[in-house]
């Protein structure tokens, strides 16, 4: 049994390394931002990181200098100074002002993230153990009536054998679903997020959106994606045993392709009954 286990780990590791090489870029930072909000977050993080690094290098530069030069073994004698009110005040006040400097752009970004008014499209997102459902509630302007009423479930599509067996892992292992959320590009999409059972969280790193799904309550968030493409996220709140297996995929299409897709959904659901999962038609889906 141990042998099988080790074999499995070995095969898994080998496969993973190979596919790791396929993604040759090691990922050190936040994902490529695809919305203005995500871009602001990315830049905010960079600024804060740089400030922290500068302070870190300064402080520990001094500490390591001390470690080298103020050693007993090189004969350094201990000075006996201690207590200095001026210095204490300086290193209390200066960090305080640095923090204010950080808080200002952070406040601006936060206020923008909270503004869900005047959306072009409203979608209700419901978290279940262990999948998502998407219901298109309302479009505005040239989206009016286009996708209203479309509803389907979105479940992990990675085959069981890839997870538990030794089948080779697909390109979007654990980040693929049968029916992705489809939205038009460059439109403000408001998502109303709730849950059916326990807490979940809807997270799209590329959009800078993460919102807890609280059973019995709705929470709203919004995004406006700048480029067509396929974007992937995951559930971000422990929700039971398949928490790691309920990803989110958002396909962003040009307006016309979105309208075509929506029309297909409506025909399919009219044919197949209200609550069944819509046919996974994503015609014209651009390459990732």
């Amino acid at each position, binding site marked *: 049994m141990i042998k099988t286990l080790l074999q499995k780990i070995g095969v898994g590791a080998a496969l993973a390394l190979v596919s790791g090489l396929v993604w040759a870029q090691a990922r050190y930072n936040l994902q490529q931002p695809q919305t203005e909000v995500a871009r602001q977050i990315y830049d905010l993080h960079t600024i804060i990181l740089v400030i922290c690094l500068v302070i870190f290098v300064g402080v520990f530069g001094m500490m390591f200098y001390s470690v080298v030069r103020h050693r007993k073994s090189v004969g350094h004698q201990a000075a006996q100074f201690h207590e200095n009110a001026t210095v204490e005040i300086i290193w209390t006040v200066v960090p305080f002002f640095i923090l204010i400097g950080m808080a200002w752009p952070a406040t601006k970004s936060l206020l923008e993230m909270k503004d869900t008014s005047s*959306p072009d499209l409203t979608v209700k997102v419901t978290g279940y153990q262990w999948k998502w459902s998407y219901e298109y*509630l*309302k479009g505005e302007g040239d989206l009016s009536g286009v996708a209203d009423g479309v509803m389907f479930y979105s479940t992990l599509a990675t085959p069981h054998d890839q997870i538990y067996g030794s089948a080779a892992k697909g390109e979007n292992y654990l980040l693929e679903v049968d029916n992705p959320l489809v939205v038009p590009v460059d439109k403000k999409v408001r998502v*109303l997020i*709730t849950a059916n*059972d326990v807490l979940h969280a809807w997270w799209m790193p590329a959009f800078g959106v993460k919102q807890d799904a609280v059973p019995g309550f709705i929470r709203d968030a919004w995004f406006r994606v700048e480029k067509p493409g396929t974007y992937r996220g995951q559930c971000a709140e422990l929700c039971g045993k398949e928490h790691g297996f309920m990803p989110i995929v958002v396909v962003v299409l040009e307006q016309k392709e979105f309208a075509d897709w929506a029309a297909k959904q409506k025909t399919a659901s009219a044919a197949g009954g209200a609550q069944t999962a819509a046919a996974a038609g994503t015609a014209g889906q651009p390459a990732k």
Partner: protein
Amino acid sequence: MNRAAANRTILIKLLVVAVGMFGFGYSLVPLYQKICEVTGIYEVEKASAAPANTQVDESRLVTLEFDANIRSDLPWRFRPLQTSVKVHPGQLVQVMYEVHNRSDQAVAGQAIPSYGPQVAGQYFRKLDCFCFSTQTFAAGEVRQMPVVFVIERGLPRDVNTVTLSYTFFKVEGAAPSAARPRGDRSAAG
């Protein structure tokens, strides 16, 4: 005071603090409710007095969307009869929701409202709502129920899209008496 008595004094004081903090933990429950009410995140559901200022604000329109959820153990279909309306703040609005009990038994449920954005909740004045009490539906019954409300003129100007969402939860036990007050945290729910 001798040493042992001095020690005992501190012991007792600290024990009182510990017990007090346990009580404080429980007091967070009504405190949280109160704060949610005051900030409008979550309202105790009872009929509001008609708002003092009923002048309609013609200068702006607010898009109201209606959402319906049921917990999966409820054998109902629950939907708003209109998905959205555009209203003026101060205007009296009535919308209808419909429930169809698809099972072959009487089932009771309680609707819980929620607002997106949450801040809009404190500007909703409900005069009549099926969420004020538990609703019982006979087997196979289809019924439409109103929500009558006014959005207060104080709604912040940068909020012009509001979603009113209801989630119906099953209420256990034999058909409960009508008009059970909400916020009642005793058993059965």
